């Protein structure tokens, strides 16, 4: 990054000492909270949003900058379900397992998707294409059962409709891969 930006002084000054520009956004969040210890949760949010997941390196970095012991950073990060410590797939499918979705058969959707993708809930396919997870309640109970594919809510879902949507995305990926190989 630093090489390409060398002709432009303004851009160069933005390059982070770590060599990874994503840290700029993280630094900005910490600065906004004056590196206060209390901002730990906000900083973890920002880190996950920017990097996709919380690596060990990131937890070290945050611990150093907020002067919070690493054990505490780790303790807080692991307490909350939202934080993840593994890279996530390119696409994701979240099945809601709230009460309304449960009584309308969400567990069948989870089973079907787990079989289609050959992964358990909470994991990512080996090729890094798809992550499968469940949510406690997405608050769309009027449309139960509900799943979210790449951020788009699918209401009144069935195992078949969701498998079909995911199948289409995977098929598109295959086409892209074939083209890349051919090209």
């Amino acid at each position, binding site marked *: 990054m630093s090489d390409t930006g060398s002709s432009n002084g303004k851009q160069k000054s933005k390059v982070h000492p770590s060599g990874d520009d994503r840290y700029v956004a993280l630094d900005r969040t910490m600065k906004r909270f004056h590196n206060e210890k209390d901002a730990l949760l906000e900083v973890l949010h920002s880190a996950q949003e920017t990097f996709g997941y919380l690596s060990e390196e990131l937890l070290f970095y945050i611990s150093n900058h907020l002067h919070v012991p690493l054990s505490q950073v780790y303790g807080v990060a692991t307490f909350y379900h939202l934080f993840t410590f593994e890279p996530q797939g390119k696409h994701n499918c979240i099945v809601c397992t709230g009460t*309304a979705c449960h009584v309308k058969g969400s567990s069948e959707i989870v089973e079907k998707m787990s079989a289609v993708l050959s992964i358990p809930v909470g994991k990512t396919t080996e090729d890094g294409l798809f992550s499968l997870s469940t949510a406690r309640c997405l*608050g769309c109970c009027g449309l139960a059962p509900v799943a979210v594919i790449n951020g788009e*809510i699918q*209401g009144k879902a069935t195992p078949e409709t969701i498998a079909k949507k995911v199948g289409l995305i995977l098929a598109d990926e295959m086409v892209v891969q074939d083209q890349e190989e051919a090209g």
Partner: protein
Amino acid sequence: MSRDKLDQIAEKEQARQSQFDKRVHCCISTACLSAGAGRTIQTLRDSVDAAPTGDEVEVVQTGCMGLCSRGPLVRVQEKSGEEVYYADVDSECAEELVAKTVSWDQAEAKQQELSPELQAVRDRLETARKKRSLKKHILSPDLPFFTKQFKVVLRDVGYVDPEKLEDYLAHGGYEALHKVLTEMSPEQVCDEMLRSGLRGRGGAGFPTGLKWGFVRREESDVKYVVVNGDEGDPGAYMDRTVMEDNPHQVLEGMMIAAYAVGANHGYFYIRAEYPIAVDRIRGAIRAARRHGILGKSVLGTDFSYNADVRIGAGAFVCGEETALMHSIEGKRGVPRMRPPYPSTSGLWGKPTVINNVETLASVPAIIKNGADWYAQIGTEKSKGTKVFALAGQLTNTGLIEVPMGITLREIVYEIGGDVPGDAEFKAAQTGGPSGGCIPNTHMDTPVDYESLQELGSIMGSGGLVIIDSTTSMPEFARFFMDFCVDESCGKCVPCRVGTVQIRTLLDKIIDGRGEPEDLDDLEVLCQLVRSTSLCGLGQSTPNPVLSTLRFFRQEYEALIPSSV
């Protein structure tokens, strides 16, 4: 900014709105959006542009209109105030709707020059005029779904544009705040809330006026107000809807609370699963700052107030007030012993008021209409209205607001329109993982805090999930126990270990390995967890098991081989 200037903005917006012959409201809340409201609103806009008419028509995006299972929902409002609701409005229906509601004027058509795209829309509208399917989409205003409701909290939800402060002002927004700042002392505000009988809508039902009074009497240079928007109960989305669809209403309630207790700073704690609610509340805070509603000298008075947003990270226990405060402080969201209560030692050790979203959203209406008006709604001990998220095996699912004291029968059979298909109603589950299941034999119970508690359930935050005869109750109880095992914070032993043991017993029974004494053991274990857990989460964890054991014991017994 002074009150006069806000009045001017409100009048200008009212005048702007009244110039339209028709206003077409299209719900763009999460449920309708996922049913295709994005396409619907675009079609409505294109059709209004293409229709040959002299009518002035505005297409407005609004929040939830309630009947989520029939979305996308559209409402046409005439100049006279008359309204018609349409359900299941897809693009085709949207075209027919516009073609038939605007006055069709061929002379106008000749004057208009249309782009090729709009000409195509015009042609489709011509065809749509001849169709006869629109009637099927009309929702009669006489439906019990509408007539049985009484709206206080949701009054403007579905009418105001949540991203427009002007619209909130045009609906009388911030009048209540102005009233308390200029006409009432903090003490009077607390008394007014106490007289209104408003109780905490998060589930516990503590009198709001009493809570405010405690904090008001604390002597401290710093006090806080916290809005609990960590709506964790699966099956509940009342607070999400209010925050998304009328964020200023919550902010106004929060500011009235702040004035009443003497706080100058506050936090919204919103769960991360609600990104739109986070955006809208942040937007409302920015707009309020710009207009001098937040900041130094609020509405030109010497009261100053600021608010921030903190986002949760997926922990159910953070809905518990002491856990929530730890989370705002950037720590693990574990509860602590009370006392001291947050009213004496809350955020960073300072006196703090924590109120649920719905509680605070009720406040502006109470101030505006008076405590006596509010106190006449509902029952003797439970005043006012309650918002429920109606879900599960029902014909009409969605968001409703009903006066306290209404019976479950009215909610399920009249508003909800009964269980669809051949299946039969089995139970109503209230209060999420902390609540219980109410069987058909108790359907005439009035909905209020005490009656539900007597049945071993709780009012909870307002999730109401209907279960039909296809659901097995022991499995349903296990579903909630799974939830509690995952969500137990691990601080106290009864909850951490007890929930796992309860689940193990349930597994054993459901797998057909149960013994007759297991049911008694299960009950003893549940009572133990209930009486010895540290916080409200742990204490209420056994409720789903205990209430299903009480009303559906025969289902458990049927699973135990030796007892058959």
